[in-house]
């Protein structure tokens, strides 16, 4: 999708109008665009910058600083595997290896059919029932290789 596309333009200009006068509005604006479009197209930066009274460098700087924002489309569903210590203590290192092998992608990758993207996450706050995996907005506890396969097959 490109910002010259009518839909994209509407989303971006709508978000800019909504947040132009909101103090510190850039983060919620970027969240909204990404929620609508699935990513933040690079050629929206100029429109966002002029609408928010910022330089393009500032807008690009914010997009690139935060792990959540991306300027390329992702898979339909993002799978986050927790890499933090509590999950490590319960075998997340082997779970990570299994997930990568099962999906055939590394962190930051998207499956060739476009269904899944894989991202690391450093803590889902579900640390008493590790290892944790987030699929879309749902968190799953005590996930081992078998449980992960079961979850994936049920989607």
């Amino acid at each position, binding site marked *: 999708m490109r910002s010259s596309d009518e839909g994209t333009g509407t989303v971006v200009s709508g978000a800019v109008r909504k947040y132009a006068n909101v103090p510190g509005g850039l983060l919620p604006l970027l969240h909204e665009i990404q929620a609508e479009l699935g990513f933040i197209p690079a050629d929206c930066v100029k429109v966002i910058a002029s609408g928010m009274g910022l330089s393009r460098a500032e807008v690009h700087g914010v997009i690139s600083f935060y792990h959540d924002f991306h300027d390329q489309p992702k898979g339909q569903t993002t799978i986050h595997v927790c890499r933090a210590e509590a999950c490590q203590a319960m075998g997340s290192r082997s779970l990570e290896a299994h997930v990568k092998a099962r999906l055939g992608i590394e962190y930051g990758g998207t499956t060739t059919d476009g269904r899944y993207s894989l991202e690391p996450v450093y803590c889902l*706050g579900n640390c008493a029932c590790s290892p944790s995996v987030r699929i879309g907005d749902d968190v799953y506890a005590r996930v081992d290789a078998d449980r992960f396969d079961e979850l994936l097959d049920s989607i």
Partner: protein
Amino acid sequence: MVKIFIPADTTSCALGADAVAKEVTLQAQNRGLDITIIRNGSRGAFWLEPLVEIEADGNRYCYGPVNPSEVAGLFDAGFPGLCEHALLLGQAADIDWLARQDRLTFGRAGLIDPLSLDDYKQNGGYEGLNNALDMSPAEIVGAVTDSGLRGRGGAAFPTGIKWRTVLNTPADQKYVAANADEGDSGTFADRLLMEADPYQLIEGMTICAMAVGATEGYIYLRSEYPKALQVLNQVIATAEDANLLGKNICGSGRDFHIHIRVGAGAYICGEETSMLESLEGKRGLVRFKPPLPAIEGLFGKPTVVNNVLTLAAVTTVLAKGAAYYKDYGSGRSRGTLSVQLAGNIRRGGLIEVPFGASLRELVEEFGGGTASGRPVRAIQVGGPLGAYLPESQWDTPMDYEAFTEVGAMLGHGGVVVFDDSVDMLAQARFAMEFCAVESCGKCTPCRIGSVRGVELIDKIAKNENKSASFELLEELCETLDQGSLCAMGGLTPMPVRSAIRHFPQDFEVSSGSGVER
């Protein structure tokens, strides 16, 4: 009509609570039973979730952990009445793990419907604000100071002093910023509070606003907590409708508005100045201090930045008095500590106890040892920047000073247990790797030192120039410790050094070329 309580917090749902609720609805329908399901929050006994409760003879009885496949069997045995069943645990007070806690902050968690303002009020909610509205700002700040409350986010700075600074700094606009960017591994207390008893945060922020003269508040919530976001959005709207937020709160002539800002997956934004930058819509780069946020904080205005649990604790201080709160605790650590027992643990969850309990008591008596059944070997306390403690340190009382004395820190109260299969070299390497991933990039020691740290630990693992690599790693740790602007770079050496100091055998790899050890 029978009331059935099934938690809807993240962890309970991650363990199948939604499926249990669905199955309970279905079974009740099939059997023509008149029930109401209330989606409460967890009581924090995550090892018993999904914990289903029923109301009978004016009491509540717990069943758990309930698997969706066991629901039909429960109904066959007489559920939702009180029935003999292997999953029946009795009343919450009968569960020793819960009964042994002192729940000042988490007393309502699991008890109430998190979205119900009436439930909150009927269980002591808004008593603190009611008292605060009859007090002068200086009196409120005085109560918080007298309580001995210190920042629960990890830095343990005296809350009263922070508030007094903001109160005494004249400005046309002041802010309250709640730090809900709970990124430390092994911590979930903020999330549990926001999902199980969210009005407490709203009330705490409002009391703070009354104390320091703020009219605008922000909750900086991490994006990893979508359920907490939903809950907070709802309760803020309800509080506004009830005139507990907004203009002229409860007829006091005072205004206070709360806005939620969602983070975007940057651990560093839990650092208070980085969080302020992020709230302003910028990259989360750490600021120099001074100026303190209490003097020049959000948008350059005086700002109280407090952790969720600190603001929550304030409601107890104002409702029951500073002396009541101060009566709990040990040494200069007053009140209760919300320990989050996590990692390889049999009975994990939220344990609120007065400061001063030992790690051994928590891990062995509450936790029941490891989930794997193997011996505990190392315990990391205080998140990814906290030390790994060996068995010789497990009797250290959990208070801020005692932990500092042994080269560790309590932080936000996260306790992550590892069994004897842990490779401490891998854990030390991860600490550096995590710093490299999450560094904001402002300071060279943190940005580049962390990358060099990973490389050096890899060299040690391969037995390359081992003694020189160790020496260099120690120098690097010293540079990070002394030369970083914030705790991210400054504390990353803590897990690394503690791993080397207490678990040296894990760094004695004899494979490789057999060069210098």
